């Protein structure tokens, strides 16, 4: 489908993905790091020629992303990126379709398109720049802002509870769910690669600092003295260990995750819960999604869940193939003259 005249994929460099447009985020914004990691990893992530790559976004600071990528790009309207992307992907399944979006864009106005894209397993990659605030409109609270947050629209503190984007996507049956942090380039690079490699809807949440309107929202996960005790790096098939000295672990007590100390001999790594990205049911991932509901437990980053089922765009394409095989390639003359006709002469 992709109208390539040339068919081999050149060896790209990061700068091949950098457009001629000046980047216009605030100095210090976490978005810069995301852009850098995407450009850095794309030569590896993109298995196709770059004219087959499309970046699609809604509205928000994060949604300016496509302008900075030297690929096809579409800066859509607020909240509609997942469905705009779905249209592109269904029309041409050969394209590699990526969505750059913000917590307001994806989860406030765009929530429905997101959960439906997850449910349908449209083969698009959704990268959420979660800064827990509305950046572009200058600092109103978002559906991922913590309860009680004081912002321009909540001068006395917000009274609603935030979404847990991981749990929402799992509840919508997304086939790939992962999380990373703007301040951890290496981890982010890995997650971008994993996201790109997944066949089906891939959802990657990135904690992103908005230093203007919500500075430090993720500081416990990024500051040197706290991050190790608050972050759990998920690794498949590995016991869940964390802490500055890798001295703490997660154990499953029935359905309940608890923290245990593995430095004092009472528990060892063997007692710990082993991460399984590929668990058949979503239960494993859901427990992880809610891990830090308890403030004593760390926040997981990494791949929560990955599984495979037919993609929506693939299903549509296959059905067309199947019907063509069954009924033969469409013949307009036949359709027009089909049914109950009669002749006047």
């Amino acid at each position: 489908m992709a109208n390539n005249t040339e068919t081999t994929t050149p060896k790209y460099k990061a700068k091949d993905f950098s457009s001629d447009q000046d980047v216009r985020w605030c100095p210090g914004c976490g978005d810069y790091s995301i852009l850098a990691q995407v450009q850095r990893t794309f030569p590896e992530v993109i298995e196709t020629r770059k004219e087959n790559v499309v970046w699609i976004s809604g509205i928000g600071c994060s949604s300016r992303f496509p302008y900075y990528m030297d690929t096809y790009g579409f800066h859509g309207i607020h909240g509609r990126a997942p469905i705009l992307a779905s249209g592109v992907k269904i029309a041409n399944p050969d394209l590699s379709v990526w969505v750059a979006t913000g917590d307001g864009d994806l989860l406030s106005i765009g929530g429905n398109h997101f959960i439906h894209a997850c449910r349908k397993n449209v083969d698009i990659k959704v990268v959420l720049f979660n800064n827990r605030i509305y950046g572009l409109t200058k600092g109103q609270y978002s559906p991922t802002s913590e309860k009680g947050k004081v912002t321009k629209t909540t001068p006395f503190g917000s009274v609603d509870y935030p979404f847990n984007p991981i749990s929402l996507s799992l509840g919508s049956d997304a086939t790939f769910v992962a999380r990373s942090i703007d301040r951890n380039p290496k981890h982010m690079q890995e997650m971008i690669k994993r996201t790109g490699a997944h066949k089906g809807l891939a959802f990657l949440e990135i904690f992103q600092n908005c230093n203007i309107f919500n500075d430090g929202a993720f500081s416990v996960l990024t500051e040197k003295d706290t991050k190790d005790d608050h972050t759990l790096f998920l690794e498949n098939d590995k016991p869940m260990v964390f802490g500055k000295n890798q001295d703490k672990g997660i154990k499953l007590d029935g359905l309940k995750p608890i923290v245990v100390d593995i430095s004092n001999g009472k528990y060892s790594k063997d007692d710990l819960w082993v991460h399984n990205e590929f668990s058949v049911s979503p239960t494993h991932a859901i427990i992880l999604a809610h891990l830090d509901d308890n403030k004593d437990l760390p926040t997981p980053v990494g791949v929560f869940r990955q599984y495979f089922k037919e993609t929506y765009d693939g299903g549509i394409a296959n059905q067309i193939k199947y019907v063509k095989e069954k009924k033969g390639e469409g013949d307009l003359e036949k359709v027009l003259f089909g049914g109950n006709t009669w002749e006047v002469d």
Partner: protein
Amino acid sequence: MTHVKEKDFQQLSDVTVRFAGDSGDGMQLTGTQFSDTTAWIGNDLNTLPDYPAEIRAPAGTLYGVSGFQLHFSSTDIHTPGDTADVLVAMNPAALKKNLPDIKNDGTIIVNSDAFDVKNLKLANYDNNPLDDDSLSGYHVFEVPITSLTANALEGLPLSPKEVSRCKNFFALGLMYWLYDRPLQNTEEWIKSKFKKKPEYVEANSKALQAGHKFGEMTEIFTTRYKVEPAKLPKGIYKNISGNEATALGFLAASVKSGLPLFLGSYPITPASEILQFISNYKNFGAKTFQAEDEIAGITSAIGASFAGHLAITTTSGPGLALKTEAIGLAVMTELPIVVINVQRGGPSTGLPTKTEQADLLQAVYGRNGEAPVCVLAARTPRDCFNMAIEASRIALKYMTPVILLTDGYLANGSEPWRIPHVDEITEIKVDFRKDPEGFYPYSRDENLARPWAIPGTPNLEHRIGGLEKSNIYGNVSYDPDNHDKMVKLRTQKVKNIRNDIPDLKIDGEQSGELLVLGWGGTYGTIKEAVAKANNAGLNVSQAHLHYINPLPKNTEAVLNNYKKVLIPEINLGQLARLIRGEFLIRVEQLNIVRGLPLKVNDILEKITELLGGGNGK
């Protein structure tokens, strides 16, 4: 059987029949079968299905009545008929609800079995109308359809409920007899429909034949009617509804442009059928996407358009309202899409199963900012085919959203259609931009259209979006003068379409006392009214707009050729407003908003009044 008295045949030029019964009685099916057979034997015809918003409202209630009117003739006709010559009423509620639309002196065939105490009460009848003289102005035939059907099907392995469901075929058989139509067509339909239920095939065919035979045998009918085939132009015909014609039109546009069709849509009455029809065309590569809502329907289509498809979205009024913001995005990104709006009664949810013309100004103006789009309107069920192709042509050539307006009457109504051969349909030329040399995403061709460079094309990587773009280069631009220029360019582009569409045609005198100007589904009604007025010696012509934005170049000149212009609309004067605002021309209006097609007679009266006749001024 041999002693049956030969019935007289009376020749008629046209007849209007209405079938009415419970929404569970299969009246839409009966009407469609009668239409198909009638079309098939060569009459011209025009239909008006009229069903309630309820799916199968409880039997016997007034609001559960479903009707189907059909006008057929040996000459050219254009409307489903103001009033019916014959009513088939399957129960008291059907009788009560439809009586006001039956001609004085008309014929009424009732299923007398259904006129029991319970049904009479449900229909709010104090007395049985068959027993008092309330129907004295009509020819009433009481036929115990339920029991006759039961008799005919005796012995078949069916439950009483299943037997009762066959009674519409009995009624149909009787009507076939009365109007001298063959059973064959319907018999074949029954066979293919119930392929997997041979007992149903037998039962329904038997009921059909029994109805026919009953006509033959009974004493109560003394006359049969013949309506000769109409003299239609040579060709192969089929009976087609507006929704089906719309679907076929886009399929044809897809084939003729070489672009795969993408339809992103959310079901809504009365537009859902288009999605349903097109979802059958999978072997044409047509992709139908039943989206989560109307916004997703159009936005997925915009994505597909970006990716190089012939992208369309179908909806009705409330859905068009929801698509408003996204249409603006298509305007700004200058991508081709067609939005089909099958108008229904409004505002809000309004009258979902009824027809109306009140979305015109929404189509023309209903967006934030200066967001011009091309607006077209189909005028008859079969015309939807041509306008679908024309909408596609314009969208693709000018890189612009086009809104195609049809309405509930066109969508569900049907008429014979001379089927065009594929090679009679003009090609739609589409050139994707391939050459990187001198490529700029917002450069413009002689039509002011920008290049269509689709993802997958090497070296044309570019970014578009809803923010204002610099002319030619297409980068985001906040420059004040650029914005002024772009606002004006986008408007000019749509205006220019004027040079690429046919002049407004006049039926009748090219100048004179009165022009009746219309648009959309009122075409047939106006045509008949004007014909009648001409027959009565009145000086009146007709012009009907296919193109509303932009208007044909000669519109102003045409209007100025008449002393008066009358604009009848099923709204409060939306085209009238556009015409007044555009040309500063005084226009007369006729605005009746009843959820139904206008009546020939209403227009005729207005014409007469305006020309000083009738109860003039």
